[in-house]
């Protein structure tokens, strides 16, 4: 069975030199109805991978397929047509900067449909309201501007905007790391529901491995442009094999008390 999203052997170079690779043979598979956690810290290549999958950055080698159809080789008009289908949606990290401050929430959510030329304005408005409901937001917020709602609400608005165009694959870049626990839980519950009800393939990109516990089905750990570990989430979290994954887990602060100081050299 083909997965909703398959990427393999992905290489992205810095400039034209194969000697300096941002991504070096990276593979990532996300079946419909699953959440795959992609872990990587600053400089790991996680955002480049997401951009490459979304068709926003060119690959130097490898392939990306959506529902078995290769999309990584698309150029020009073909690429634009694919992007307009909205099958792959990339939700950026910073909702304040990715929402137009002069558009109301409902206008922003309907924007993707307008770009695609879907329906009349009234229909798009109805679709926007449905998308807001889907992420647990009161449709009355649709008339506000991004600056007039909370950070947690903005995060869900960007999610609603991505969902409005009916994607198969959702790429989310740090959707919860800046949120307090209540808002984080709200977003994660929405994702869990979307995975089940809409059969979406969700790639959750984060530097915080701990936040994936109880959310992700599988986890892929990216370090310096390479996958150093991957497997079922509980296995990666409870029995990490690679020293880097072990270090990531040891770094996660616990509510139960101070972790042992391993970085004495820094103090």
């Amino acid at each position, binding site marked *: 069975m083909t997965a909703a999203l398959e990427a393999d052997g992905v290489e992205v170079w810095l400039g034209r030199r194969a000697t300096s690779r941002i991504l070096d043979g990276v593979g990532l598979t996300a079946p419909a109805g699953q959440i795959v956690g992609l872990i990587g810290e600053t400089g790991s290549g996680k955002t480049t991978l997401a951009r490459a999958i979304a068709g926003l950055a060119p690959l130097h080698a490898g392939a990306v397929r959506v529902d078995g159809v290769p999309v990584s080789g698309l150029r020009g008009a073909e690429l634009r047509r694919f992007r307009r289908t909205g099958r792959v949606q990339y939700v950026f990290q910073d909702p304040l900067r990715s929402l137009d401050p002069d558009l109301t929430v409902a206008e922003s959510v309907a924007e993707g449909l307008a770009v695609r030329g879907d329906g009349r304005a009234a229909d798009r408005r109805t679709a926007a309201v449905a998308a807001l409901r889907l992420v647990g937001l009161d449709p009355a917020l649709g008339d506000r501007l991004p600056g007039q709602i909370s950070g*947690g609400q903005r995060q869900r608005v960007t999610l609603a905007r991505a969902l409005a165009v009916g994607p198969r694959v959702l790429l989310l870049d740090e959707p919860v790391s800046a949120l307090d626990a*209540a808002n984080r839980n709200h977003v994660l519950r929405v994702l869990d529901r979307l995975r089940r009800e809409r059969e979406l393939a969700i790639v959750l990109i984060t530097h*915080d491995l701990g*936040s994936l*516990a*109880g959310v992700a089905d599988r986890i892929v750990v990216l370090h310096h442009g390479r996958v150093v570990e991957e497997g079922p989430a509980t296995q990666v979290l409870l029995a990490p094999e690679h020293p880097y994954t072990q270090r990531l887990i040891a770094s996660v*602060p*616990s*509510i139960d008390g101070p972790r042992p100081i391993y970085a004495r050299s820094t103090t």
Partner: protein
Amino acid sequence: MLSVDDLHLAAGPRELVHGVSFTLTPGEAIGLVGESGSGKTLTCRAILGVPPPGVTVTGGTIALAGEDVSRYTRRQWDRVRGTRVAAVFQDPASYLNPSLTVGRQLDEVLRVKNGLSRRDARARAVELFASMGLHRPEHVHGQYPYELSGGMLQRVLIAIAVSGDPDLLVADEATTALDVTVQAEVLDLIAGLRERRRLSLLLVSHDLAVVAQLCDRVVVLRDGRVVESGPTRQVLDDPADPYTRALVADHREYGLDRLVTR
């Protein structure tokens, strides 16, 4: 060290903080927690003498080393800030001048605040960078903010903050934007500074786990009021207030803490 007593803050006719009180003894670390809008950042900005525009202290006192600073003028604050109280925030880059090397920015603070000569300031700055765990501190001294990572910038900001040898360090979401491994290192750095310099710490964070790493006591704010305060383990393990219980339950719903007991 720090004594906040019945603090009221208002923006015009609208009161935002309704009588917050807590004390911090020398060397102690307190965590200020609560959701966005709880007043934790407002309270901490009032303690630093930099309330947001339009927000004023309308009641109560903020005593730093016994002196009420809540109605200090700008000039009075210049005397206190850096030497008694200093702060680090979430986004270190925005507190640095992008067109000056980070070393020069610390040199300047040392010359103005500590009256050091140009040469002594430079030597002291390099020494401070080294003690913040910055590798090749001489090299870092000559680098511009854009050349440094987020973790390095936060170490530079902490160096600037402690350069005036303050008694109290306020850290408002200071590790929120950092990678987890870098966050762990910066938390270790702050823990080390507390030990070595007998710094008191006021840590503001939305992450209860971060508070659990460093703080002796926790103050829980909600809608501008203290709903609960006490020793960290007591508040987090056996919260008395329903709101605190909800915060802890929310925290434990996802994340490693639900999967493993460490």
